[in-house]
């Protein structure tokens, strides 16, 4: 479980995260939604430590990530996986080497054990016969899958996905959604997904946070959405704009 308390992030005089409080539970898809520029990526980057917020707490379990001592922070990091918006696969490495990379750096696995784990992860994302291809040689949807496989290579407890459906066709988007939800439930990990894909929100959004003007504007589940849209014009406008 991840708990965010009074999180504030500024860029110069722009208040990008305005006193955010939230809780992300394991085993469900936690979605952060909102218009482009609403601060979704900044929120995730603060949570994984790529950006430092001006104030607030980010609690993994009960340890505050921000104040954590270097080695404990590094330890915690090996429990975190991230799927980047443009996948951020290492383009000089093959698919297999990409997924193997975290294992090479942080596990004591033998080469055989590493290969087993790579193939296990590839199976989880339903990819075959791509081990020796380079990222430039595979499609956008396959890259996302490899990105997911790399993120789960170590036995993680936390998974962050920044716009996992960006640049994908609707059909592939649904497959990626299902994969992410499946992995989240199977391994009972805490998953946070940034999205502005309405289908995702309606399909798998068991816990949704709607960001507007840097604030947590609305929070609820996909079942509550229809009612919430009636009462919340900003949320309604966001949905209308997306279709």
């Amino acid at each position, binding site marked *: 479980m991840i708990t965010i308390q009074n999180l504030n992030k500024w860029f110069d005089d722009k208040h990008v995260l305005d006193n955010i409080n939230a809780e992300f539970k394991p085993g469900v898809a936690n979605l952060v939604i909102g218009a482009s520029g609403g601060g979704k990526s900044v929120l995730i980057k603060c949570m994984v430590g790529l950006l430092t917020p001006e104030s607030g707490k980010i609690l993994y379990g009960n340890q505050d990530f921000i104040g954590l001592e270097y080695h404990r922070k590094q330890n915690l990091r090996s429990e975190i996986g991230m799927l980047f918006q443009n996948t951020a696969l290492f*383009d000089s490495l093959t698919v297999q080497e990409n997924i193997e990379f975290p294992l090479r*750096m942080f596990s004591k696995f033998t080469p055989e054990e590493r290969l087993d784990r790579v193939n296990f992860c590839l199976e989880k994302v339903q990819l075959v016969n791509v081990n020796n291809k380079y990222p430039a040689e595979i499609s956008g949807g396959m890259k996302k899958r490899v990105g997911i496989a790399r993120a789960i290579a170590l036995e993680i407890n936390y998974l962050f996905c920044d716009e996992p459906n960006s640049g994908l066709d609707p059909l592939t988007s649904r497959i990626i959604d299902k994969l992410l939800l499946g992995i989240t439930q199977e391994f009972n990990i805490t998953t946070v997904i940034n999205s502005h894909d309405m289908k995702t929100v309606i399909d798998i959004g068991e816990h949704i946070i709607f960001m507007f003007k840097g604030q947590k504007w609305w929070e609820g589940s996909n079942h509550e959405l229809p009612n919430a849209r009636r009462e919340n014009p900003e949320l309604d406008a966001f949905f209308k704009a997306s279709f």
Partner: protein
Amino acid sequence: MNLLSEIGRFTLFMKFVLRKPEKSKVFWTTTFREMYLIGIDSLLIVILIAFFTGAVTTIQTASQLLSPSDLFPTQLMPKFVIGAVVGTSSLLELAPTVTCLVLAGKIGANIASEIGNMKVSEQIDAYEVMGINSANFVTLPKIIAGIIMIPCLIIVANFLLLFGGYLACKMTTTLTSSDLIQGARLVFKPLYLKVMLTKSVIFAFIITSLSAFQGYYTTGGALEVGEAGTKAVTKICIFILFFDLVIAQLFLKS
């Protein structure tokens, strides 16, 4: 002011770069690959440039010193002087400085755009999220590889410079190749070798670290990645020429 803050940022960057690598096995594998890329891929251009510069320098020096003038009768000019001039300028300037200015364009631009691309495509962020010191991971192997391979390239360049000069002598009648070799050997001092090696190591560090620095702080997209390459080359050239002067002053001031 701008220069000062730039130097500050560079120092901070180097503080992250010059740390013990996380996994020494991965580090050395990467370093060997970089050594191959830096060394082997640049060998041909270094050889070509050194060979032709050597030939041209020999012909031009001979022509300057042996052309009739009122100041000094040419028949009194000993021919080995040409060899002495060519030999020392190869060792002190042509091999290290000219080679490194060329390598700035080849290796420097390459490193800056490679790391710049990793930055804008979030590969650097991916390392950081995994808990890897990205500045160290992507930069240190390149710096170490450069400091090992660039001096080797410069030593090769030295031989090719003299070989170019040697062949140039064979093609003309004004100068024999033994004049050249004799002259070069006559004025050789171990100090010159020291200067050459000092320059090579410092220039190698400038080329690899400045280009990595430029790439690492790229923001934006493909356009900025390209710009990072050209900006890196300009900065490297300026710093090489500046330190060229500093080293010459330090070692050779009479």
